[in-house]
């Protein structure tokens, strides 16, 4: 899907350049194309202009100028998102936060840190490593994704099963609103009196304002981590193992599952010496040593009892990291076994894993496609990777259709349209599958309380364009929503 290119008026460009400096104000169509999509490359729109501000003050000035010129504003971090959350709209101003990459303050005693939004997720933990602290949410893209983007998407990662998501680890933020005012939400001290606006901001996909500073909670590293990698004849035994481990009262730090095709892809891409099996689990338990020794032994015994073919324990940290590297590179690895693929993200109740995987597999077979499954098994967050060949006529449409069907299965089994990639532009048409008109209307009022001009990141989350109006109005569904045929993009 591609939107039209609508340039921004030269007078506005020169005003913006005056604020951020000419090298940080991009308006040449060729250069703008760098910003035409995020990690979801099937959606592309060249923005009207891009600026790369260096401070909150510059962001404020830019918002003021954009508002006068009535430009939509699309905030952008590293552009690694997978839902088109940073997809420009025609004629918009993209505000890229990648130059705001300073660590502003670290307070180890009180376990928080203040950073600019462009700081990479992993750089926070690297900065703290020598002191023995870290930042818990660990999306697979953590070496390049920005903390501002994580705030927008409420990013998760493998270890959020035990530790929670971005929203559980962000204590405060500085936010530039559409009227160019600056507010601080939350902060290092807990329980600021008033509504939990920081909780609302995290996961709002850049629709409420531009985050220019983030206060994150940092954690002391656990004393010990035990990892095991277990292989199984099929995803049935692997899924049952996960259920049994959790029923035994163990809260693993992470439990990841990969099916046969995913294992093949990861082997091809990374050279890990994993066997050809129907499914594999990669699991971490962490915490105080005594606790971890106990839970690791118990979990291993459960895997064996459930028919594990082989159980490997890494002999050292290097081998452990290699195992995790295999898992974290899974998305890209699929490129080794298929010319094109779609990364899907949906959630199902954990107890439905086996039945949903069977449904996906039969749908896939009907369409003559292949799906590799990599997922966070502990919390039922599926990442089906739908393999197709764009050079085969009709294949891409089939793949997109399958992606949509998988989402509907997730919602119908009591799950969610997205566990960590966000709704963005990609899944906005599917929101009525999960939420009623009244639900969406309530969410829209929340958005209007922050940005009544609908200036920030229009076209995301909500299936149809709406206005805030002076007074809250009744939400009127479109015809396609009423007929239940909301289609993709």
């Amino acid at each position, binding site marked *: 899907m591609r939107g039209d290119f609508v340039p921004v008026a030269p007078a506005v460009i020169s005003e913006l350049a005056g604020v951020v400096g000419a090298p940080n104000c991009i308006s040449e169509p060729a250069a703008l194309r760098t910003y035409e999509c995020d990690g979801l490359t099937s959606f592309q729109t060249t923005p009207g202009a891009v600026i790369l501000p260096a401070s909150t003050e510059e962001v404020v000035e830019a918002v003021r100028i954009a508002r006068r010129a009535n430009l939509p504003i699309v905030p952008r971090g590293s552009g690694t998102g997978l839902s088109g959350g940073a997809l420009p709209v025609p004629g918009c101003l993209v505000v890229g936060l990648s130059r705001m990459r300073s660590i502003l303050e670290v307070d180890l*005693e009180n376990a928080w840190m203040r950073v600019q939004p462009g700081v990479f997720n992993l750089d926070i933990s690297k900065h703290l490593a020598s002191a023995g602290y870290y930042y818990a949410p660990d999306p697979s893209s953590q070496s390049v994704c920005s903390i501002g983007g994580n705030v927008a*998407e409420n990013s*998760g990662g493998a270890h*959020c099963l035990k530790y929670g*998501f971005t*929203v*559980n680890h962000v204590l405060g933020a500085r936010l530039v609103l559409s009227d160019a*005012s600056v*507010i*601080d*939400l939350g*902060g290092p*001290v*807990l*329980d*600021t*009196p*008033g*509504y*939990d606006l920081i909780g*609302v901001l995290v*996961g709002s996909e850049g629709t409420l304002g531009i985050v220019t500073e983030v206060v994150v909670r940092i954690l*002391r590293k*656990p*004393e010990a981590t035990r990892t095991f990698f277990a292989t199984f004849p099929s995803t049935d035994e692997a899924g049952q193992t996960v*259920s049994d481990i959790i*029923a035994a*009262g*163990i809260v693993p730090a992470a439990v990841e599952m990969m099916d046969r095709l995913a294992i093949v892809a990861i082997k091809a891409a990374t050279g890990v010496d994993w066997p050809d099996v129907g499914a594999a689990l990669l699991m971490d338990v962490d*915490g*105080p040593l*005594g*606790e*971890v020794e*106990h839970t690791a032994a118990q979990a291993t015994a459960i895997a064996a009892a459930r028919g594990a073919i082989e159980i490997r324990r890494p002999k050292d940290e290097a081998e452990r990291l290699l195992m995790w590297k295999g898992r974290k590179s899974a998305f890209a690895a699929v490129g080794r076994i298929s010319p094109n693929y779609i990364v899907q993200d949906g*959630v199902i*109740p*954990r*107890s439905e894993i086996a039945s949903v995987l069977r449904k996906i597999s039969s749908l896939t077979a009907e369409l003559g496609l292949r799906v590799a499954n990599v997922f*966070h098994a502990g919390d*039922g*967050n599926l990442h089906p990777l739908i393999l197709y060949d764009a050079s085969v006529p009709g294949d891409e449409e089939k793949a997109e259709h399958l992606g949509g069907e998988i989402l509907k299965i997730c919602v119908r089994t*009591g*799950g*969610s*349209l997205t566990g*960590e990639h966000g*709704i963005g532009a990609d899944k906005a048409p599917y*929101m009525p599958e999960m*939420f*009623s008109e*009244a639900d969406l*209307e309530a*969410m829209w*009022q*929340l958005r*209007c*309380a*922050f940005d009544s001009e609908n200036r920030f990141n229009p076209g995301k989350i909500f299936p149809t364009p709406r206005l805030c109006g002076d*007074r809250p109005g009744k939400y009127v569904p479109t015809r396609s929503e009423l007929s239940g045929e909301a289609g993709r993009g």
Partner: protein
Amino acid sequence: MFAGARRGTDADAWLGTVPRWVYSPSTLEEAGDFVSATAHEGMSLGFVGGSTELELGAAIGKLDAVLQTTRLTRIVEYVPADMIVTAEAGLTLGRLAEALAQHRQRLALDPPAFDRATLGGIIAANSFGPRRARFGTVRDLLIGISVIRADGTRVRGGGKVVKNVAGFDLPKLMCGSLGTLGLIATATFRLHPVPEMERTLLVPSCTASQLRALISRLKAAQLEPVSVVALSHRGEGFEVALRFEGFSAGVNEQAARLAKLQQAQGEGLEVLDEAAAQAWWKGHDEARLRGALRAKIAALPGHIESILPQITALQRSLKNASFLWYASLGLGFVAGDPIELEATSRALAQARLQLQDLGGSLVLQAAPRPVRSTVGEWGSVAPAFAVMQRMKERFDPGHRLNPGRFVGGI
């Protein structure tokens, strides 16, 4: 006014205000119809759960109607295998715990008045207890919600899976909103396993600086207590309770290691037996609930030494004073009975000024009326207050729901 509603009596008075009508729906549909009826009449409407936090926030000047959730107590869905539960807002935490215990699971929230506090009330008031140090507060465990809006329509946010980023986070918006945006109808929570064992250890006496050092020591040693609570009665040093939970191997090992650390420092440590531990935590809960004056304070954990003189001054203005400090969180509770109201008000105002300077806050959870009017319940409003006002306007344009109770007169 509405079939089934009754006239309010003095027994229904809420901070001195008697509601004209009181209604206790037995279904969510009835609740929605009642909210809608009050909207048609333009009536102000208050929400009441287990009545454990009625004194939190400002008095509502004129209260046309009160909706009590005490009959909305159904467990809508409990899936032990997925470790999630959905229940109606009027269910008490105690009753929920009984149902979950059959599967050795629990909702890891432990506010005082466990047997009376309702799920809806806990969400609305952001009530929490000592286990917050490990499991977070209600915002961290609430994964889905349904809310009856000011016009009576019921809306949902979140879902029933732990991992879910679809749409705006209405559950978070409702946490701590004190009934000013809508009536919490049902709530879905993430559950945790009941631990195999728990053990409480007591540092019988330490100063504020020793307390800070203790917290640092715990972190350096990578010990992971689920609760660290310091108790002081007159500002003359703390008694510190540390609780470990988990599998026995882990709990025993952590307790032994802590004992060694304390010994090396020349500081004491008692291991409480089960009865003594239960008594200590019961005493803690009672201290949280006792007193005509109860104030919640928030600061950074490391601020304890600098704020202690003001806290001590406040304690000296009270009889039966207690100060509970959740040392790893930076949250505390001062409670007691004012000896002389003006002195207490002055001490509160001074403590609040200092806390606000440090980026923290002091909120009255209960106070005699003269103290409320002198000091104010909430303190200065947050920098984001304008957005909060707009949020109220968007969700309750008639300003009917718990009007004036919340921050800044919202």
